[in-house]
């Protein structure tokens, strides 16, 4: 019927086409929502098929767009890393749309809400599947613009302000990326990642190589909100509509993680030790700073946004240790964190939608959860997962992380991070107590109706399933990490021969 290479394009093309059709359906809101959900589910099915095809095929799937051979045309490449990240993205995106469909926010009634959601998915998927640096820049811009507009139209009054801040800093990120692209092109005469990797490994070192590495690192640090480029993230993720902030704080920040993995295992293998040393330091700062800031906030959504800083810190340390096991741990951590953080943010949004004023600030939501035991149970399981307590998937990722750290002999980092991860338990338990145990203040009552609980329930089910039956994910991550250990595999698949 079709060759399996087409599978690489489908997770990008389906949401993009779906977005165009969804704009045409803007007059019929019910149809538009249904169409968007169907499109995203179809895209997710194909991303699972892509993962299966890559896994079974044993080599990266490459689609040369327009039929141009590798260094000249744009190649789309799905190796295990891309495929796993795309599956993660699309899985969480489906639940995001599901949450938006059941949401009472005014923002979901805007005609462009669903199309922008689909272009957000397109941008993220495309940036992870592309094998060309400039194409990655274009997809990242699509992602940034969609995400910013979705936040700017938020119900929250400060949505525009937060969106302005974010857009400003991410325009800077795209300048950094363009500078990196220019430097690499001047030095090595290509932008195809596989041929760049081959050229950097074999040709003499260009004087622009280190500036390019620095610019690319700054780009991905802004994308992942890594200290010292973190300051936009809590504002932006708090002000965004719930369905959107659940995406931004879970899968969108993983683009930077993906970029760092590609940098250290494909593009700059010889320079990787320096990059990794920097990543470990940044990760430790992120874990401690994120944990402390999350303890000091007065808003559930803001607390979870700071917690993302800490969790991304863990992943960066995993990438920084750079052993096969620690990269496995980082990939599993990234996958699990996406699911956990999306579920937690949706639950926070669910509680806020039941509060008298739509806000997730602690003095408004205190006690609001008392008539909502189901959400409380889900939030409790999510907290366990975030803190890494069995039988949730958070335990699997934390255990692998610490195991790989002991084997990599990163004891200093382990000690600091181990202490800082106690913060996780402290702030999630505090949020749980305030919302579900404390008595509400005078005059604060719980509204009878609000957002639907289906999407977070699905995610929490996934948390439990992946905690008890972790084998498939662990196997996929191990296989990914084995592939990443051999950049020649990627280079050969793209360039051929």
């Amino acid at each position: 019927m079709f060759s399996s290479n087409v599978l690489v394009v489908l997770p990008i093309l389906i949401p993009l086409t779906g977005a165009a059709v969804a704009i045409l359906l803007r007059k019929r809101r019910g149809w538009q929502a249904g169409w968007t959900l169907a499109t995203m589910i179809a895209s997710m099915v194909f991303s699972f098929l892509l993962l299966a095809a890559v896994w079974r095929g044993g080599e990266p799937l490459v689609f040369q767009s327009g039929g141009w051979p590798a260094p000249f045309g744009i190649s789309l490449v799905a190796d295990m890393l891309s495929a796993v990240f795309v599956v993660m993205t699309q899985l969480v995106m489906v639940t995001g749309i599901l949450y938006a469909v059941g949401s009472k926010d005014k923002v979901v009634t805007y005609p462009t809400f669903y199309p922008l959601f689909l272009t957000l998915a397109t941008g993220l998927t495309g940036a992870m599947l592309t094998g060309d640096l400039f194409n990655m820049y274009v997809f990242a811009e699509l992602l940034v613009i969609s995400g910013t507009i979705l936040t700017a139209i938020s119900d929250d009054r400060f949505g525009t302000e937060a969106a302005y801040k974010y857009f400003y800093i991410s325009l800077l990120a795209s300048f950094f990326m363009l500078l990196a692209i220019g430097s690499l092109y001047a030095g090595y005469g290509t932008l195809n990642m596989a041929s760049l990797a081959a050229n950097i490994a074999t040709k003499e070192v260009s004087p622009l190589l280190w500036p390019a590495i620095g610019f690319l690192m700054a780009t991905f640090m802004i994308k992942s909100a890594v200290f010292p480029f973190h300051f936009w993230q809590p504002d932006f993720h708090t002000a965004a509509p719930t369905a959107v902030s659940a995406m931004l704080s879970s899968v969108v920040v993983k683009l930077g993680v993906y970029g760092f993995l590609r940098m250290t295992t494909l593009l700059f293998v010889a320079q990787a030790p320096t990059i990794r040393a920097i990543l470990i330091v940044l990760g430790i700062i992120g874990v401690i700073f994120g944990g402390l800031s999350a303890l000091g906030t007065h808003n559930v959504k803001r607390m979870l946004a700071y917690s993302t800083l800490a969790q991304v810190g863990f992943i960066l340390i995993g990438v920084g240790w750079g052993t096969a096991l620690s990269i496995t741990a980082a990939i599993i951590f990234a996958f699990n964190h996406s699911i956990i953080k999306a579920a937690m943010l949706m639950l926070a949004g669910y509680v806020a939608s039941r509060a008298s004023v739509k806000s997730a600030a602690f003095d408004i939501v205190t006690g609001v959860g008392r008539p909502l035991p189901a959400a409380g149970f889900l939030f409790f399981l999510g907290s366990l997962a975030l803190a890494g307590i069995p039988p949730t998937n958070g335990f699997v990722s934390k255990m692998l992380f610490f195991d790989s750290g002991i084997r990599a002999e990163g004891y200093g980092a382990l000690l600091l991070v181990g202490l800082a991860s106690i913060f996780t338990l402290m702030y999630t338990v505090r949020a749980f107590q305030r919302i579900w145990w404390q008595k509400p203040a005078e005059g604060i009552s719980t509204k009878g109706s609000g957002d639907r609980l289906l999407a977070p329930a699905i995610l929490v089910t996934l948390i439990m399933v992946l905690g008890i039956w972790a084998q498939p994910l662990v196997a996929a991550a191990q296989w990914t990490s084995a592939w990443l250990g051999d950049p020649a595999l990627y280079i050969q698949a793209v360039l051929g021969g």
Partner: protein
Amino acid sequence: MTLLVALTVGLLFAIGIFQMLQRNVIRSLIGLMILANAVNLFLLSTGAYEGLEAAYTTADQPSSDPLPQALILTAIVISMGGTAFILAMLIIISARYKTADMDEVDRLKK
């Protein structure tokens, strides 16, 4: 020529960053636009004029590199969209706060 381009790129970067750090939002937006042009000029300097002939002629002479030009074209389009979007957000923000001073737009932090 190379020195001239290098100096121009450097000067544009300096002006852009200086303007971007101003408190007035309009000035900082102008700074951002200057920075975008500095980046584009930098991309252009990576080899757009190494040959004299256009890339699509059949003349047997060293042809100039079409790729940086294609990159800049894309970058210009994207930064135009971005600038338009920033201006739209600025209209909303300045109407809400009745000021163009970034230090007074701070209700998000409270």
